[in-house]
């Protein structure tokens, strides 16, 4: 085991929704970082890994015939149902897990002990992989209208913003400082994305401290500066992503929203996305639907609708689409905020950038997007993801929703992204895993204080090294699609089985097209490597990074060897191992793997050995359906 063994328990069963009765006995291990369940009963040894940081809740269920049940819900939606033979063992596991899954101090987080075999230089290089200045340069900044200012270098303007922010050149220090006193938490309007083609900009901030009637000259000047930085339009939009009622209620607390009368040439608009509490509750209801045992179609659809989850996804998507349209079609700049400008604002700005700019649909670009709009701009990952023992009301699936919006776009535009669904899921896992330092804390200042950059590793090199598994085989390249215009009619939003029922393998398509296509492509990698070497010699500002993954692999990031969480039991087994030159070892044995797994794995939920059971199960389902229709 990678870390110290804390506890070992025999006679433990792991149940899933299909094999309730036939579960074999296995052994449960608790290490300092993981729960590992080993089932050695079958020919093939099966391991289930759960990272302690991923555990959201542990519950003891009432005594069952087979033993003492323990139900574990994870933040990545894995649900593990163990049945432990002895009560004393069950209690010990329960109390250990409660302690291990709820660290109190940041120093207890995995990132501070995670130690892959890597040289100091490589670790530091890893942190330098993403440089936001390069992205601003890519947008043409600094230019006549916009500059990267160091006014916040000591966090004097805003302590949840990064040291370097982009503001209009016309906004001098007095304007910046004055505006910061008029914005919640000092989060002044700054640039998120500049659409070079027409100079329209997406900017973000927090709500103004306007109350019912307060004004601030500097804040008005700030917005004017933003508007005038785009000579192509005489007006700009100010978008409040809260429902109107919520925003109005904030006025009573001395905050609120911009009064169109006070700001020249702005068009104010509400786009109602619900708050973090509504979203937390919505996800809870969604997960209850996902956990239903053999629901009818009616139960599922009704439950899904009642959760409101897809409605919220659509709301975020609609907002992103509005921003993109305003910038591209109306050539108008947009200033976006919610309350504090670190939740809905982050979702909407990053989504709009993704819709407008194909760079953010590449590996490198997506990493830049997250580093910029989420990490640097102070999305409170630690609170929203419950990294430490804290206020449960601060927990909310804000980043999850953003990841889902990206996934929805991938369904509509299968060839437009350089990466595949697994990339999203891996990032999502690591947002919660605390294995890497990127998502620790709540803002850049806090990360500096915790010495993240000295003591922990960055996620990005680790992911880039796995590029071959995480890439999209259908990607048509950087120039194939410019801006994306998704269909946002209700039927366009699909249920993301791969996220919310990720570990219920029986529900997913039985054959993995992705692995097959990746296998086909790995044959072509040799050719691509040669091409990349040539590409490397060309200067580039835009475009996907050709062979960073290969060069890093040569340096030798061994990080991927550490299995960090539950290995999904893919129906077709693991993807073929990737050799250091990028070629796949398995190649076109993928097809025979499929057949082999068919033979081995016929115990699918429909495949009950005792047909009488099937009949009883189907009979009772039929009864339920009849009951629900009468």
């Amino acid at each position, binding site marked *: 085991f990678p870390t110290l063994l804390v506890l070992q328990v025999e006679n433990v069963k792991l149940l899933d929704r299909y094999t309730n009765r036939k579960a074999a006995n296995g052994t449960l291990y608790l290490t300092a970082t993981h729960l590992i369940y080993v089932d050695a009963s079958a020919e093939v040894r099966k391991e289930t890994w759960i990272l302690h940081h991923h555990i959201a809740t542990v519950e003891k269920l009432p005594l069952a015939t087979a033993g003492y049940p323990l139900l574990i819900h994870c933040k990545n939606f894995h649900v593990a149902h163990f049945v432990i033979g002895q009560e004393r063992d069950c209690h010990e596991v329960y109390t250990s897990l409660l302690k291990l899954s709820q660290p109190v101090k940041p120093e207890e987080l995995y990132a501070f002990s995670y130690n892959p075999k890597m040289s100091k230089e490589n670790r530091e290089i890893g942190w330098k992989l993403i440089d936001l200045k390069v992205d601003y340069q890519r947008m043409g900044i600094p230019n006549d209208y916009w500059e990267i200012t160091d006014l916040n270098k000591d966090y004097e303007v805003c302590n949840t913003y990064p040291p370097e922010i982009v503001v209009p050149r016309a906004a001098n220090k007095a304007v910046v400082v004055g505006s910061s006193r008029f914005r919640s938490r000092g989060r002044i309007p700054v640039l998120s994305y500049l659409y070079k083609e027409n100079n329209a900009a997406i900017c973000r901030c927090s709500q103004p401290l306007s109350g019912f009637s307060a004004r601030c000259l500097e804040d008005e000047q700030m917005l004017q500066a933003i508007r005038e930085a785009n000579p192509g339009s005489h007006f700009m939009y100010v978008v409040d992503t809260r429902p109107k009622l919520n925003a109005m209620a904030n006025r009573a607390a001395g905050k609120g929203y911009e009064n169109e009368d006070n700001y020249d040439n702005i068009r104010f608009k509400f786009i109602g996305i619900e708050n973090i509490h509504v979203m937390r509750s919505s996800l809870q209801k969604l997960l209850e639907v996902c956990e239903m045992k053999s629901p009818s179609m009616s139960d599922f659809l009704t439950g899904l609708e009642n959760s409101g989850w*897809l409605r919220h996804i659509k709301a975020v998507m609609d907002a992103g689409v509005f921003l993109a349209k305003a910038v591209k079609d109306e050539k108008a700049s947009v200033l976006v905020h919610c309350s504090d400008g670190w939740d809905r604002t982050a979702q909407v700005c990053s989504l709009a950038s993704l819709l407008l700019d194909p760079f953010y649909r590449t590996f490198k670009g997506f990493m830049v997007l997250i580093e910029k709009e989420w990490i640097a701009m102070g999305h409170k990952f630690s609170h929203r993801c419950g990294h430490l023992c804290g206020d449960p009301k601060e927990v909310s699936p804000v980043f999850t929703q953003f990841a889902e919006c990206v996934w929805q776009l991938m369904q509509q535009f*299968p060839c437009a992204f350089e990466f595949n669904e697994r990339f999203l899921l891996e990032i999502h896992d690591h947002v919660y895993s605390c294995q890497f330092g990127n998502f620790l804390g709540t803002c850049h200042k806090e990360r500096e204080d915790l010495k993240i950059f000295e003591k922990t590793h960055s996620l990005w090199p680790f992911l880039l090294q796995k590029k071959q598994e995480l890439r999209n085989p259908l990607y*048509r390249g950087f120039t194939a699609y410019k801006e994306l215009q998704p269909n946002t009619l209700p039927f366009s939003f699909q249920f993301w089985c791969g996220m919310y029922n990720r570990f219920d393998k029986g529900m997913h398509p*039985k054959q993995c097209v992705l692995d097959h*296509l990746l296998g086909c492509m790995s044959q072509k990698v040799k050719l691509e490597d040669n091409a990349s070497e040539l590409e490397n010699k060309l200067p580039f500002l835009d475009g996907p990074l050709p062979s960073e993954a290969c060069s890093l692999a040569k340096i030798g990031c061994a990080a991927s060897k550490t299995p960090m969480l539950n290995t999904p039991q893919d129906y077709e087994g693991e993807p073929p191992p990737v050799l250091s030159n990028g070629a796949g070892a398995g190649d076109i044995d993928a097809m025979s793997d499929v057949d082999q797994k068919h033979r081995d794995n016929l115990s699918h939920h*429909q*495949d009950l050995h005792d047909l009488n059971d099937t009949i009883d199960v189907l009979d009772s389902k*039929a009864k339920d359906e009849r009951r629900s229709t009468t």
Partner: protein
Amino acid sequence: MLRSSQPLTGPNRKRCREDETLLGMVLDEGERGFIIDTRSAQAAKQARMTGGGTEPKSSYPHWRRLHRALERGRPLQESFIKLVEACNDASITMDRWLSRLESCRWLSHVKAALSTACLAAQCLDREEASVLVHGAEGTDTTLLVTALAQVILDPSCRTLVGFQGLLEREWIEAGHPFHVRCARSAYSHARLKQEAPLFLLFLDCVWQLSRQFPFSLEFGERLLLTLFDNAYASAYGTFLCSNEKERCLCKVKESTHSLWAWLNQPEEKEKYLNPLYTHNALVIWPSVEPQSIQLWHGLFFRWIRSSQYLDEAWAEIQQVVGGN
């Protein structure tokens, strides 16, 4: 696997020695068989009042009867009409869409059809027992089950040619009354009594299988859409009339062209092939969990949303799989 129509037991529990003998001969010594009746137990019992009924246990001792109520006729057509209306309704809001979809019950019918076909397949494959499938007339839900079960069980039915053979056998020759079932589709104001989208339901189920087993069908969605089109209106005689007798009387084979002949031409054929196909000798068991069953966008939103990006994806798949 056998299929038939309902036994004419009637209110007086008539028996038929020949029918009992026939079914008896199907089973070997000591074997038992299953009868899958696609009507609810209640409906099957009520059928006795109008001369129909079920096989009484006493007369068919080695056959165990299972009831799996599958929707057919008027209610199925209503389900179809409601679904198409919902899909075409641009004013539906997000908070009503799923309940509207639910109230159509189309996906519930897909789930039920797949479940019943799996049940039949399990009897054969797992229990190694013979199965007799029937509903009332043996021309609708019966064929849905037997045809689907064969796609699940038999790899040869999953080839392009094999699938055509299956359609010929289990739908056309078996006497599914296409002429009256596929007269007006979902838009008819006439609300014809005999109209019902059983064949579409079958195609939808096959599409679900192709989604869950993307490598195992030699044909793709395009074939299924073409079949759907041709069942309702066709330049070819394949789906004309309601049974072989009518086709004979109308001289269909002499006076029309066969759809299969056209489809199987090399230039046409390649448009219908699945670039991911590899022969899979095993039974394909679908998941019937709601999460695994999806609304068939390619059919129900065919004219509503562009398929450009999905077509481009398929072209990419073709390229990747096709080799350098």
